[in-house]
């Protein structure tokens, strides 16, 4: 009979709302809000939190890629972040964009990262303090990262294709309708410009939301293990690639697999379906 972990592999990667309210002014931490709703931070945020916009701050405006290491260093410097700062990310949509920002910080080698369990919605539902005051921190001189950890935690199209052909674990975290090819957009979202519906051949469907409770907190370790180890066939030491439409929902699953289940070879294919579904020559599967 299979045994399942009773604790997260890296429990230190999560903070609870109760803890954070008591540590809002701690030295050495920076609370970072990252949302889908681009004006949400402006309507009120956690006291002391800075705002990082997933597109304007993290993505290159010309090439579909992330900012340069120089820009990342400037971004951190502007928010008073040093390499030793513990960045605690939170946001709307059950932390999709918080996980995306965390993943992007890891791309640049920033190690001290955590997620606020339950995100913005849980904090607000618990009527914890919010403010519209935008904090100012003394600028720091964040050293320009020497490398980007693309090879370690990011997958590109060719790698995802090789993965598919060699039947290695691929997890499609989109909604079942998107996976089956019945729809080419997320339910409740506008079409984001994809020509074909379906999924990468061999990918298993496990919507991101499977990993969360109704209050947007993460499910316990044993439940996550059953979902991903048993149902998706993911194993420690096996290369695994996760994807969605543009990489934000899959960042959430990447966080679950990497930090909560402790799998060390998980990569996020951020090109995701908006690349694959439009790519000339890319094979797809429909409704399985």
């Amino acid at each position, binding site marked *: 009979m299979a045994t399942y972990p009773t604790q997260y592999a890296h429990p230190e990667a999560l903070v609870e709302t109760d803890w954070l309210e008591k540590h809002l002014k701690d030295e050495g931490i920076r609370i970072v809000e990252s949302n*889908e709703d681009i004006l949400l931070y402006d309507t009120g945020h956690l006291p002391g939190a800075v705002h990082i916009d997933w597109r304007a701050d993290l993505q290159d405006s010309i090439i579909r890629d992330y900012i340069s290491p120089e820009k990342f260093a400037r971004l951190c410097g502007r928010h008073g972040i040093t390499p030793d700062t513990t960045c605690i990310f939170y946001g709307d949509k059950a932390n999709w964009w918080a996980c995306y920002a965390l993943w992007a910080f890891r791309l640049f080698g920033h190690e001290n990262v955590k997620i606020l369990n339950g995100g913005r919605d849980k904090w607000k539902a618990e009527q914890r303090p919010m403010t519209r005051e935008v904090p100012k921190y003394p600028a720091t001189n964040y050293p320009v990262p020497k490398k980007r950890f693309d090879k370690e935690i990011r997958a590109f199209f060719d790698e995802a294709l090789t993965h598919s052909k060699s039947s290695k674990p691929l997890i499609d975290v989109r909604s079942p309708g998107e996976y089956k090819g019945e729809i080419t957009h997320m339910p409740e979202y506008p079409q984001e410009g994809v020509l074909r519906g379906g999924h990468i051949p061999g990918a298993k469907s496990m919507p991101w939301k499977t990993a969360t409770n109704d209050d947007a907190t993460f499910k316990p370790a044993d439940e996550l293990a059953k979902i991903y180890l048993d149902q998706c066939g993911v194993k420690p030491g096996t290369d695994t690639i996760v994807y969605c439409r543009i990489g934000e929902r899959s960042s959430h699953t990447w966080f679950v697999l990497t930090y909560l289940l402790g799998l060390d070879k998980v990569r996020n294919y951020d090109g995701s379906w908006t690349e694959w579904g439009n790519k000339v020559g890319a094979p797809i599967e429909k409704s399985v």
Partner: protein
Amino acid sequence: MSRSCGKLDEAGVALPPDGAYPAKLGNIINLFESLPEDERRETLVSYADNAKNQEPRAREKFDLADVRKDEECMDTVGVYLHVDKNGKAHIRMTLGPEVQTLTRSMTAILCKGLEGSTPQEILDLPSDFVTRIVGAELVRVRSQTIYYVLTRIKSICKVYLDRQRMAQVA
């Protein structure tokens, strides 16, 4: 040959003259265009805060109401139309809690900016003013629902006008 010297959008396409918009909406457009980016954001948030005030009030009566949850929007959006005896439209709207901030802003802007316009004027309204208010930086694929609010308002005006025409024919 004369050349147009009116305002151009980011693609270099001539924008409609300011007179193409109802006066109240034109004033709001001009206000937003005069603001630096940070104040533009603040003003958008102020409008979003104000969206609740655009809901139907007690004892108000409407000629048409259209409350529904569409596939491309996060939550239910209700549009209520009253056309007074002078043919002027008065619009109220309700938004579900999941509707995004920018969409809330646009709701308040449109309810105020279109107050007192005729249904036909609303139907004829070009949609290019949206980016002039919101600014190119905030218009993204996932914020396209700001156009959705305008579409819903136009839609209820069209139904109203169609019914008026049908009544005249009958």
